[in-house]
């Protein structure tokens, strides 16, 4: 018997018993939908995680902040980041680099020729560990460790504007050289700042109305690539320089100065840690937390979301497995019934010369087709489920700013093929026993049936 003829015969038989076929296939459909949903979630979440690794930041770089106690009281003590902390952090297995950072406790103006810039963040870094952090530079090099060097983030040139001749009071009108939020900003060429000298002008209040300024000259060694490092316009300076600046600012009594410090006891605002590989991130995070510091890794967010969806996946997987098992029993039952009903037909076919394999093939085709129908409907339901999940608001899930999330549930072509193949497989497996029974029917006894 030809395969297509078999399909045609079987299809007509299924059409003869539409509601029974529908109900039998329904079980397979539910099972397939649940399993497709489960796998689609798993794939989508994994793809998302991978994508956010690439988009967000280098996952192997962790930012560590001083620890704080949740319940303030006499015993509440913050765990400060000091030279000792750096040594402790270096001892955590998996840590390859530790780079302390300190912010500037005040504002500064950047001057470069006739261009000025404000609102930049200044971060002092310990440049000795820099090469371990694999900074990606658009241009130039990272801090070498010598004095009066700077590295700028990609956005810094966008925050420079031309100084107005008339007065400095005009600056509120905002004549930005390039407004990063303007669509047509790309028209003007970017200001080239690498290998230029900048004047960093600090201002402090010395009295009610009197201001004092101090200028630091730095040479820009390099510019980070777009989207790398911390977000925003940032000027990276050697740690000692920022500490000196803070010292100078701190004498005023304004700003955030006045911190208690020991003589040789330096506090860092933040310490960056470089982890050897992605796999060790979680372990290092645990180690850092055990030391009493605060840190956060996108890995944790991903893990949380994944564990939430893992429950969903387990439920779907369970539903899928159970309903496929029940569906399989259902198919078997339907097939036995249909064989009972068609015993005489089978007998006639045998007398007409249908061979045992072709009888068996016919019934396997029938159960396989039921499975296939169930699989197709299950896929449709799975697609609906996936698009519903993907429609749900997702932007806050990972809590990362400025990041577009992809689909949470993804159904790749291989999953479609797998689901179809699997449902057909379930159908065929369930049809094995009934098909054998059909093949064994004695034509004479079958013909005696009325």
């Amino acid at each position: 018997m030809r395969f297509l003829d078999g399909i045609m015969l079987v299809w007509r038989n299924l059409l003869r018993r539409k509601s029974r076929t529908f109900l039998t296939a329904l079980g397979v459909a539910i099972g397939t939908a649940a399993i497709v949903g489960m796998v689609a979630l798993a794939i989508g979440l994994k793809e998302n995680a991978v994508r956010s690794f690439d988009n967000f930041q280098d996952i192997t770089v962790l930012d560590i902040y001083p620890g704080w106690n949740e319940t303030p009281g006499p015993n509440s003590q913050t765990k400060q980041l000091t030279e000792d902390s750096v040594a402790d952090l270096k001892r955590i297995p998996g840590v390859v680099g530790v780079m302390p950072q300190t912010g500037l406790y005040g504002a500064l103006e950047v001057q470069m020729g006739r261009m000025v810039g404000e609102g930049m963040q200044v971060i002092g870094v310990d440049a000795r560990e820099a090469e371990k952090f694999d900074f990606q530079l658009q241009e130039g090099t990272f801090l070498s460790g010598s004095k009066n060097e700077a590295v700028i983030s990609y956005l810094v040139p966008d925050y420079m504007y031309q100084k107005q001749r008339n007065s400095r009071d005009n600056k509120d009108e905002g004549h930005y050289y390039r407004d990063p939020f303007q669509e047509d900003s790309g028209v003007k060429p970017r200001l080239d700042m690498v290998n230029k000298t900048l004047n960093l002008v600090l201002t402090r209040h010395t009295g009610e109305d009197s201001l004092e300024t101090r200028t630091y000259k730095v040479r820009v060694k390099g510019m980070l690539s777009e989207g790398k490092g911390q977000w925003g316009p940032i000027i990276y300076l050697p740690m000692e320089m920022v500490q000196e600046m803070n010292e100078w600012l701190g004498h005023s009594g304004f700003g955030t100065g006045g911190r208690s410090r020991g003589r040789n006891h330096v506090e860092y605002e933040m310490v960056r840690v470089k982890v050897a590989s992605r796999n060790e991130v979680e372990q290092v995070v645990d180690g850092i937390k055990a030391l009493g510091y605060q840190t956060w890794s996108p890995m944790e967010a991903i893990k949380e979301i994944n564990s939430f969806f893992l429950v969903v996946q387990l439920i779907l997987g369970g539903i899928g497995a159970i309903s496929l098992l029940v569906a399989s029993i259902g198919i078997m039952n339907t097939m036995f019934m249909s064989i009972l009903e068609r015993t005489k037909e089978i007998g006639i076919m045998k007398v007409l010369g249908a061979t045992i394999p072709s009888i068996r093939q016919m019934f396997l085709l029938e159960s396989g087709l039921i499975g296939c129908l169930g699989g197709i409907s299950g896929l449709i339901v799975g697609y609906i489920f996936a698009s519903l999940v993907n429609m749900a608001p997702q932007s806050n899930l990972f809590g990362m700013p400025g990041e577009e999330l992809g689909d949470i549930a993804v159904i790749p072509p291989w999953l479609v093929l797998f689901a179809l193949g699997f449902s057909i497989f379930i159908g065929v497996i369930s049809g094995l026993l009934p098909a054998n029974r059909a093949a064994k029917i004695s034509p004479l006894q079958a013909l005696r049936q009325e």
Partner: protein
Amino acid sequence: MIGSIETCDLKHTFKLGKIDVPVLHGINLQVKSGEFVALCGASGSGKSTLLNLIAGLTKPTGGKIIINDTDITNLSENQLCLFRQKNLGFIFQSYNLIPSLTALENVELTLIFAGLPPRERKEKAQFFLELVGLADRMNHKPNELSGGQQQRVSVARALVNNPSVVLADEPTGNLDSHTGREIMNLMRKINIEGKRTFLVVTHDLSLARLADRVIFLRDGLVVEEEVVA
């Protein structure tokens, strides 16, 4: 010879639990190629049993069956299916058409199992339905046909695989005498024109007279043979 049927000391005993029911007690039958033989006998004499044995639907408990020079006694069930597919046509008393299929599809079914491509088998099925005079009923379902028409479909179905031997168990049993005679004449015509061997069981002696030869069975033995002039 192609188209010949031969049985040697064919015995058959049904087993009903512990009780043996002997039905055939050693039948020696010889049907020549192209012959039309009628098988008569009282009810319960074992006619159907003999026919079913020849069709390979049951295994005899003794003796041999040789069709087309092939000893089918020791063939496996699947070999028997294939043998029927290639060599035998079968006509039932109660037509036994498949109710969900049209006349054309019922006739095609035999060829589907033989694995013929759609076009070829459709042409053949149409040819034989035209031969039995049902050119205008091809797309009717069995329950839209009269008994005589259904039996014609079943004759076409038995012929479509071009068998050398056609077996018919009371093909006229469910029909009125007029229609029965028509069917018998149709088979006789095909027998003569198509040179196929026919072995037909019938109760109706007047119909049996249309055959080349009539064989009478009684209590599982051939009791009389009559050659019709």
